[in-house]
């Protein structure tokens, strides 16, 4: 048997959705269900080695070529901006990047420089650069919604799924920045050196995604 293809999955919800997808392709994912504390697992009938990692690390591993493929959210891809191929939009893990402020806050009014709190400073910078707007960006690690409530920031740039957290804290979306979903990424050299294996895997995944779309 050939050297297995190595795929890195983002731990948590994207991992579960990916395992579901692999199972719907008919692969035996026993090891993935009974993983315990192991970080490298094997899907024998697909000759796939599965690595579990945090989202940003998935990109790092794939970029350096120690993993051939990865499943990661578009949010992390936009923040990290790595050099890799983004082959398939997997469709699951849907949410969006949005700019939010306190309800009825006049964000675009006045001439003062605005302060934005975010876990995603690069996404924030790119968004406001595209509007030719100078802003001060404050990086926050935990609940970003706090920043405008405590009046540290005028607004936040964050991931919005249902909007419930925003609403409960008296915040609202001012502007959508980008739609987000999980992506299948591939190392630039792996795609060329192991083209057939990767292409046949990608085709299976795409075929399944199309079937699912048509069923809905």
């Amino acid at each position, binding site marked *: 048997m050939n050297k297995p293809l190595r795929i890195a999955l983002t731990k948590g919800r994207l991992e579960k959705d990916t395992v579901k997808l692999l199972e719907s392709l008919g692969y035996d994912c026993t090891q993935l269900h009974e993983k315990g504390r192991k970080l490298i697992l094997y899907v024998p009938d697909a000759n796939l080695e599965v690595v579990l990692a945090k989202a940003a690390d998935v990109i790092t591993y794939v*970029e*350096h*070529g120690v993993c051939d493929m990865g499943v990661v959210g578009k949010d992390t891809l936009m923040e990290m901006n790595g050099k890799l191929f983004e*082959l398939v939009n997997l469709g699951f893990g849907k949410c969006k990047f949005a700019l939010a402020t306190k309800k009825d806050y006049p964000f675009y009014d006045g001439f003062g420089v605005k302060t934005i709190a975010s876990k995603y400073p690069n996404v924030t910078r790119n968004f406001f650069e595209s509007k030719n707007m100078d802003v001060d960006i404050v990086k926050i690690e935990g609940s970003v919604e706090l920043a405008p409530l405590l009046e540290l920031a005028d607004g936040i740039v964050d991931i919005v799924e249902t909007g419930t957290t925003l609403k409960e804290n008296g915040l609202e979306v001012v502007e959508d920045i980008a739609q987000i979903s999980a992506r299948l990424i*591939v190392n*630039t*050299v792996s795609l060329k050196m192991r083209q057939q294996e990767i292409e046949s895997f990608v085709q299976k995944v795409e075929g399944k995604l199309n079937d699912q779309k048509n069923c809905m």
Partner: protein
Amino acid sequence: MRRYDLITPEGTRDYLFDECYAKRETEKKIHSIFKRMGYAELITPGLEFYDVFNLNSRYFPQEELYKLTDNKGRLLVLRPDSTMPIARVVATRLKDAMLPLRLFYNQTVYRFEPSLKGRSDEIVQTGIELLGSSSRMADMEIISAAVSVLSSVGADYSLELGDVGIFRELMHRLNATPAQKEEIRSLIEEKNYPALNDLLDRMGDNKITNALKKLPTLFGGVEVFEKASALFQDARIEMLLDHLKELYLEVCELNQNGRITVDLGLVNKTDYYTGLVMKGYLAGCGEEVLAGGRYDKLLSEFGYDIPAVGMAVNVDAVAGVSAKLEKPQLRIPDVLISAAEGCEAQAIAVAEELRSEGKVVEHALFSDLELVREYARDRKIGKIIFVSEEGMEVDANE
């Protein structure tokens, strides 16, 4: 307070023993390939005026360059690339030289890489430039040099060919703003099929948008050419495809062990390339180790309008792959000479004699003979010669 006196700046490193040896061996091997093809080496300064790199055909983002000023306040950069300085030299001092010119270089290039990514800011590149010919033979010469370099490593390799002319031709006919065109280019480069399709769908359903959608999927073996000509059906593009296909078939014939492929979606942003482009990969390295192509417009930016083609190899990446395949073996000295006090000149004469026979000879610098033996054991030197008033005594060291 000196806080940074014991470390090197981020993105740089010291190369010791095995690593250094692997790097030099790699350079030697590649240079012998270049020299046997008639290429002559040149060295350009590490510091250049910023203007040399501020061209229309290739744009270096400011934040990627190491900048400083000279004593007149003029902006200098540590060279981020060797081809542009070479174009400057050729367009000035070599303007009257007989063409074609065959030049090779082995120089460090400096670029700011994003921090904490494990990348080097300082990379040694070695490469060749063939200036003054637009012939197919010139293209073939560079491709065959690339094949020789890749196959000399001993790892599985793959050389990929493309032609940016096809992409340029399609973009030329597309009705879109420069910003949209740049977005399309970057999506093709990333092979981001879903986003590319979305964007082009919004620009209408016509021959050009359909062709652009398929462009990044057109990579692989000879079948790519059939797919492409069926898709494009255009005389001008057909001509470019034919040229590439001929090159491709000829290289396949020459090449024995590696894989030669085509990718019509090779469209890098920072390229000055105008036609043929290529990239080389080695198993065991996560990024390309070789890149090159034809750049027929670069020299004219320096006021000398001649065509050119060339390629560059990332020496550090190749040396890394070689070192993994075969642990570099530094040569162990054959003999250790220990001189008694007053016999130093005699010891040096003995050493020179042995060196002239091709032996590697070291002098022991201890007066305690036990320390001499210990040092030899540690360095795995098999033979010790003690030189004293009484003469020479040879001792096999276990």
